[in-house]
Structures are given as structure tokens and as C-alpha cells.
């Protein structure tokens, strides 16, 4: 399986960085098999084009503004993903949407896209997650890993504490 777990968000805007922090935690918790990469995408866009080409699965970890209580985890898949971008629930809808649209244009779109996000407490300036959102990082990591188990490609735990 050719897959990417992509954390997006800006780590200097507190909870905005949860996707990136989750990817860092995931890399410490699991050995990624050949063909599966964990990427700290930050707030990049077109630089990601190559890494996101021709994937079987793209798992996006992000902040989601869904009007839910802070810390709520939301999983979107299939038809919900374009809606997620269209309704601008993510602060990054523009850049990642551009990358996916470009991949569609040249026929390299991922076969499947899953978005797992956390409702933030705040997007204030700061390098640390709020305790509410930080507490959800292990769950975010577990959910990302579960996407692989569900597809018969379980990630091998490294035994480290997430």
C-alpha cells in the first residue's frame, strides 16, 4: 500500500498545530512500512504535490472548525471530504484543496482520502497545544493507525508511549 499520513497546521498558532504534533507522535509510536510516509505538511501547498501523488490512501490530520465542543474529534471520508474543503471547515482548505485539484487534473489523485481533525480551543499565537487538545493527540494517532488496520495493513507499534 502506498499511503501518506499528512499532518497540516501551523505550529506557531497553538491548537492549529495539532495535526503536525499528531504526526510527530505517530512516528514515535509506529514503524511505518515501506510505501507509507508520515509528513509534517505545515501550511504548505504545492510543495506537497509529489509526495501526495498516486496514493492508495491519504490520511489528513488537521484542526477542524465544526462548531463542536473543543477537543471533539471528527472523521470525514468519501463524499464528505470535498464538502469539508468547500465549507472551509479547515483553515487550510485553500492550499490542500489546490494540491488535490491539481492532482486530479494530472490524474494522480489519491484513491481514498480520510480527514481526521480536532476542534480547537484557540488559535492564538503560541508553540504549545492547549491541554484539552493535547489530551486528544493519542486518540488522533490511534484513529490514524486504525485506518491502516481496517485496510489490512496494520502499523507495527514501536512500544513507545504516545
Amino acid at each position: 500500500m502506498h499511503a501518506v499520513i499528512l499532518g497540516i497546521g501551523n505550529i506557531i498558532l497553538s491548537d492549529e498545530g495539532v495535526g503536525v504534533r499528531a504526526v510527530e507522535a505517530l512516528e514515535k509510536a509506529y514503524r511505518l512500512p515501506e510505501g507509507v510516509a508520515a509528513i509534517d505538511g505545515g501550511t504548505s501547498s504545492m510543495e506537497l504535490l509529489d509526495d501526495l501523488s498516486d496514493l492508495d490512501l491519504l490520511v489528513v490530520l488537521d484542526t477542524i472548525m465544526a462548531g463542536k465542543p473543543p477537543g471533539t474529534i471528527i472523521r470525514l471520508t468519501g463524499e464528505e471530504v470535498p464538502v469539508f474543503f468547500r465549507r472551509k471547515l479547515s483553515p487550510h482548505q485553500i492550499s490542500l484543496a489546490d494540491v488535490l485539484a491539481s492532482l486530479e487534473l494530472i490524474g494522480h489523485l489519491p484513491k481514498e482520502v480520510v480527514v481526521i481533525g480536532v476542534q480547537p480551543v484557540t488559535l492564538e499565537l503560541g508553540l504549545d497545544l492547549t491541554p484539552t487538545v493535547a489530551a486528544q493527540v493519542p486518540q488522533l494517532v490511534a484513529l490514524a493507525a486504525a485506518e491502516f488496520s481496517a485496510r489490512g495493513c496494520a502499523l507495527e507499534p514501536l512500544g513507545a508511549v504516545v
Partner: protein
Amino acid sequence: MTRITIDPITRIEGHLRVDVDVDGGRVKKAWSSGQMWRGVELILLGRDPRDAWAITQRICGVCTTVHAITSVRAVENALQMEVPLNAQFIRNLIILAHSVHDHIVHFYHLSALDWVDVTSALKADPDKAAILGESLSSWSLNNKHEMRKTHERLKNFVNGGQLGIFSNGYWGHPAMKLSPEVNLMAVAHYLQALEIQRHANKIVSILGGKTPHIQNVAVGGVANPIATDSQAVLTVERLLAIKTFIDGLNDFVKNVYLVDVAAVGAFYADWTKIGAGVTNYLAVPDIPLDTKGTQFAMPGGFIEAGNLGSYKPITKFGDEYWTKGVEESVKHSWYNYDAKGPLHPYQGETKPNYTDFKEDAKYSWLKSPTFYGKVAQVGPLARVLNMLAAGHEPTKKYATATLDTVSTLAKTKVGLDAMHSTIGRHAARAISCAVQVDMLADQWSLLLSNIGKGDTKTFNKPTFPKGEQMGVGFHEAPRGALSHWVVIADGKIKNYQCVVPSTWNACPRNEKDEPGPYEASLMNTPIAETEKPLEVLRTIHSFDPCIACAIHLTDKENDTTISVKAF
């Protein structure tokens, strides 16, 4: 008088709002407003200067590597450090590959659709487009097969009920002037550029460890151990792979990008007279060739009032001519200074004072920088004009060739004066890109030959003395002169200020109420349809604002809002 407000909705990178007053079909007044507070400077206070680069590369998702490089240069300058030759060459390769990537993506994917009408391409005869393409260059993918394939793909896309990424363009706008065949050729190159840009990204990723956030820079050098016999480090094999990517970029930049820009320039010759704005041009030298940063492959300096004869060079890292010239005003910015008047970045303050948009007072989160009290344009045009003024031969070669192609296609002599314009900024970016592709190959050879001499050093360990040190790092980034200014006290950051290219170009009015480059460049721009101000986007996009963003257009008179994709 109609007021048009163009305000991007994205919150993470661009955050640019532009307001113009239009009267009699022309822009009479313009305001450029940065809509997001960049408070990264405050996060850095009290931290270890060796960590600053990793944090500053998060300022922006497009310009990650450039902030990393500039930050380590600032700290190295404060510590008066030398950087091993291999580290300079490796950094130079990253800088150049990033810049080439940025320029290609900017032209094809973020701004070409201001000039190219995708829907018109559907009406093209693919075979005629191929004949046209083959008459312009030797690029192997200008053939009939490729043009037919592009036409087919585009048709399927449109027939599929959606234009996807092309859905919100100004298709059919009266300011769109290319023939269907030229449009089809441009769309073909747009698609090819999506593939080609990967070559540049791969170079950054081999050398930088990862993209988009490189991991290999360090204060004092780079963290790339060099060995000829180990897989984990920078091997000859990896270096040879880099050369293959450079060759791929070279073919595309010389035979497609440069030619396309010349064609757009020729077919839109009227745009060589629009959009000049501020003609004081500032560029910093870059691509250091020695350990101290006193010799550079790319010269830089300052040109006043568009006069190349006024060129004054900036000659080395920490050059006083540069260091003493920069000041920032907050008269029209949402900050307060304790002191009166503009401040030097070493004394710079970051104290927010948001007032809402007040067109005669404060209206932007950007400060307003000046060079010896003068407003200055930065970016590829400033870079190319300074390099020409410095007598830089490769720049002269590509500038002459490009202007010759424009002249031939436009059937009239187009000279260097045409560069002071909206289309001139695009041409300069392509010329700069061609120069930088050649430099990539040069730096690659320099690195290999230095390793060949037995030098494998990549890092000098920094030591932080007691007391206070000040340093500035500068870098001629894709969007122009970028500088980080650091004050270190007892090994910790005491002050940190970033003066970024978009601040120079997109700044609000300064202490003397003079408009910034974006604002000045929009004056008298013709606007065909106030509800579709494509012309404003063309000029602003020619500066390469940081992001391709969807934007809202608000016509206050009619109180209508139109959503528009900015590329």
C-alpha cells in the same frame, strides 16, 4: 467613484487585502493591507538562537526554507562565524532549487491564468497549437500528440460538469487576448509544469532531509555528513541523482518557461506600460562562494528611480551599507512604537494596536520599510535589474534573449524600459529562473570538486560569548530581499525582527505618506469591469504575493459579493 475591496479569505498565508478607488475606468487610489498579525518575533524572545531557524520556517507555508536559511545567517553574523564551503554550497543548492520551484509554480499555477483563458483553449485546433509551439522552441512536448492529448483532457474535464481547479477564472473577460491556440499551448505547459516542478522539490528533499520543512540547516553549517562510502549520508550516488533533476529543470526553464513569458509579453504588449509603480529597486547579494560571505554568484544592491547607473552594490554579509539603511515605520500599521518615527530593526518593536481599516491612518498589519528613507521594490525585477547594473553576464544573456523574442513576436523593438511594468516582473522572474538553473549546475560542480579535494567539513560549532551581540542575515529569496535581525544577550534571543519581501512590496504608506510598491503599481491601471477587476489581480500577482488564494470581491456601491479564485 467605485470602491473595490479584494480580500482573501484564507487565514494562514496570504492575508492580503487590496482596496482600489476606480474612476473613469482607471484606478485612482489604492491601499494594500496585510490582514494577519505575524507575531513570530514574540515567540522567539528568550529562546536559544540555535532554535530560531526551525521556528521561523513556520512563518509561512510557501517560504519555509528561506526563513530557515536567513535565520542561521543572522545568528552566524552576530557571532562573526565562518561557514564551511561544503555547507555554503549545499545551502546554495537548496536555495536555488527552492527558488526555481517557486518561480515555475508561480508563473504557471498561480498567475498564468490571469492571462490565459482556459475555456478559449477548448476552441483551439491542437495541430495548429503544435505548429506554433514547435516554431517557438525545441521543447519535445510541443508536438501534435501532446496538444491533442491536452485538448482531450481539458474537454473531458469540462464535459465532466466541472472545471475543477479552473472553475472560478475570469473566462471570457475582455482583457483576455490570447488566441485559442496560444491558450491551449499554455494549458499544456501548465500541466507539464506540474510534473516538472517535482524535480526541484526532489533536490530540496535529498539535501534538506525532508520537505516542505528542511531539517539539515544548523547555525554554523549544515547537518549533512558527507561520505563517499555510506548510504546514510550525502553520497556520490545521491549527488548524481541531483544532477539529473537539474538537467530536467534546465530543459523546461530554457525551452518552455522563458519562451512562454516572452510570448505572453508580446501578445500583451500594452501591459509593458502598466504597473511600474515604485522604481527604486533593492536586492541583496546571494549564493556565497566563500566561508565569510564576501564573494557572491548573484550580485545585489540598490538602484534609484529606475536608473541602472545609480547602482550601488551591497558587497558582503553584514555590509554596513545594507545594515544602516533599513528602517520600518508604523504610522499606517496596526502597531505602536514607544519612540517617534521609524525604527531600525535592531530596535524594532512588535506592539499591536488594531484600529480597524482606517484609510487615512492605520490600515495594515505590515510595517512600512524603507532603504535610506526611500520606498523600495524587491523581487525578481529588482534582482535582475541590479544584476544587469552589476554587469552580470548570464543575466545579460537571458535578458537580451527574452527581449529579442518579445520584439520578434510583437514585431516591434521592445527594450529594457519595458521591464518596469507588470509584465516586466513576470519576464524578470523567468530570466532570474534561467540564471538560477545555471547556478544550480555551477554549485553542484563546486560541491563535487570541493569534496573531491578531500574536504568533508560541513559544520563549525557556534559558541555564545557573554554579553550582547547583534546580527543580520539576508537572503535573496524568490520574492526578494529577506532579512532577519537578531539581538542575542548571554546566549538567548533578546530581540528578533523579520523584514520580509512581501513587507517591502505590500507595505502600507510610510512615514512620509508615500504609497508602497503594490499601491503605487496600481495607479492608473485600466479596469474594464469593476465587478471583475482582473487587471488589479494581474498587477498584484506579478509581485508573487505569498499565496494563491481564493478571494472575495466586494463592490461596496452595489453591495454585491463575488467569490473568485485568484488563479
